[in-house]
């Protein structure tokens, strides 16, 4: 049923390997050849839309890039779009350290030349009970992890956002403790759904969405998908994460999308899909239950929210 990307896309520039994630991962494993990371192909939406769930519709580029939670650029949804103009996402390096055989500082370009960039159309569910459908381009985090060969003692991965108060005006105020930090369990990080995204709609990642490289973990609330990553650490203990540190009674380490476990300020049973009038039901693990439920079969999700 799935068509190869190159067959449906006549663009010469369009050389990305394409992989679409629908409801099930198995159906998404078809792919084509690769190379350039940032081919621009938003003029042909069929590339993305034919791989959507029937209930989903893509959000527009405008919606995705003007309504963001990225407190480094300010706390209002429009601030990242308005205040991120001075941010310089290139050149960029990512330091990888902790419990790995090959700790090193990578040039982003070097990483990108060693991975396959794919399309992933994912639902994004914010903890504030709104959601979007976003066509990302990126690569599986597992590819990068394999490159650095973690030790068997590594059980968790921590991510750190860049700290540049002169380019990120929100960091000049201590709204949260900078730099922003997030974390995943090793098996979550290795899950094929987990990607490091470098673009959306075929554009390089816009500054307000986490340029030049960000995490996307589609079955968790949006705040887990940390933006503008400069450091990745491999640890044997569960790392502190920013929102959990700020308000542990509201935000947990796992932060799996779960309509049955409510946030004290937002019921998580329903959500507003941006662009829609009526609320819709929130799906367990944001609709990725088949792919990730097994990761949590021994975990009490009401305790480890």
């Amino acid at each position: 049923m799935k068509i190869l990307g190159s067959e449906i896309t006549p663009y010469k520039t369009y050389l990305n390997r394409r992989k679409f994630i629908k409801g099930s991962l198995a159906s998404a494993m078809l792919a084509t050849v690769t190379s350039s990371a940032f081919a621009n192909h938003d003029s042909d939406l069929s590339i993305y839309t034919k791989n959507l769930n029937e209930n989903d519709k893509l959000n527009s580029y405008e919606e995705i890039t003007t309504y963001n939670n990225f407190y480094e650029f300010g706390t209002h949804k429009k601030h990242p779009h308005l205040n991120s103009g001075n941010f310089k996402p290139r050149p960029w390096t990512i330091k990888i350290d902790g419990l790995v055989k090959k700790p090193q500082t990578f040039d982003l370009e070097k990483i990108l030349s060693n991975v396959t960039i794919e399309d992933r159309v994912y639902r994004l569910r914010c903890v504030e009970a709104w959601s979007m459908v976003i066509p990302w381009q990126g690569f599986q985090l597992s590819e990068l992890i394999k490159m650095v060969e973690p030790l068997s003692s590594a059980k968790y991965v921590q991510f750190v956002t860049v700290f540049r108060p002169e380019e990120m005006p929100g960091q000049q105020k201590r709204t949260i403790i900078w730099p922003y930090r997030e974390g995943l369990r090793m098996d979550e990080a290795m899950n094929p759904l987990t990607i490091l995204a470098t673009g959306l709609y075929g554009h390089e990642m816009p500054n307000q969405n986490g340029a030049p490289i960000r995490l996307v973990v589609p079955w968790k609330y949006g705040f887990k998908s940390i933006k503008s990553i400069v450091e990745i650490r491999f640890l044997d203990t569960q790392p502190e994460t920013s929102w959990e540190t700020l308000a542990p009674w509201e935000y947990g380490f796992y932060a799996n999308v779960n309509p049955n476990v409510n946030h004290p300020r937002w019921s998580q049973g329903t959500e507003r899909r941006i662009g829609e009038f009526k609320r819709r039901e929130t799906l367990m693990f944001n609709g990725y239950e088949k792919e990730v439920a097994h990761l949590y079969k021994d975990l009490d999700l009401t305790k480890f929210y």
Partner: protein
Amino acid sequence: MFSTRNFNRSKPVLFILILFPSLLWAYQFVTGNLGVNPIEKLMDELGLMALRLIIITLMITTLSNIKPLKSIVVLRRMIGLFAFYYVCLHFSTYIVLDHFLDMQFIIQDIIKRPFITFGFISFLFLIPLASTSTKNMIKRLGFKLWKKIHYLIYPVAILASMHFYVLVRADKTEPVIYMGIIILLLLHRIFKRLTRPQLAQ
């Protein structure tokens, strides 16, 4: 020195100025110009406007202690009623647009989520204030009782600012400023009360 007439004359202008934002937002909402999440935006703007107007009514009472501004009190009722108007719009946006009259969900929301509880109680307390705002009502109730009822504005203001404070996720500057103003205004009233009997003696 501003006379009662000065303030009364400014009323039509004030009326239009305070009414205008609601008309603008309604127009923007209908024409799709309220941004990417228009229902949330509408609700936020209406609520913020209501809170600011509530604080302004408290300020008016304080300002009327300054001799040349004594007559400013004549503006208080109109602004208070506008605060109620914006609270009603805010609340109905929540009920109708945000939750589509899903009463079961809404009742749960009011009970379970403290910030919504605060907002809801604040709204309830405003109802007797708004419904006893006419001159006729003051007469019927007697000034003393009427005044007692209108002390409800203090819990209304405090609850409304708490409603806002709890809602904000990280940068609490704005709600803290509002809370600070409310506390200062209340302290001023307490101070006045404590010093008045001494003067009488």
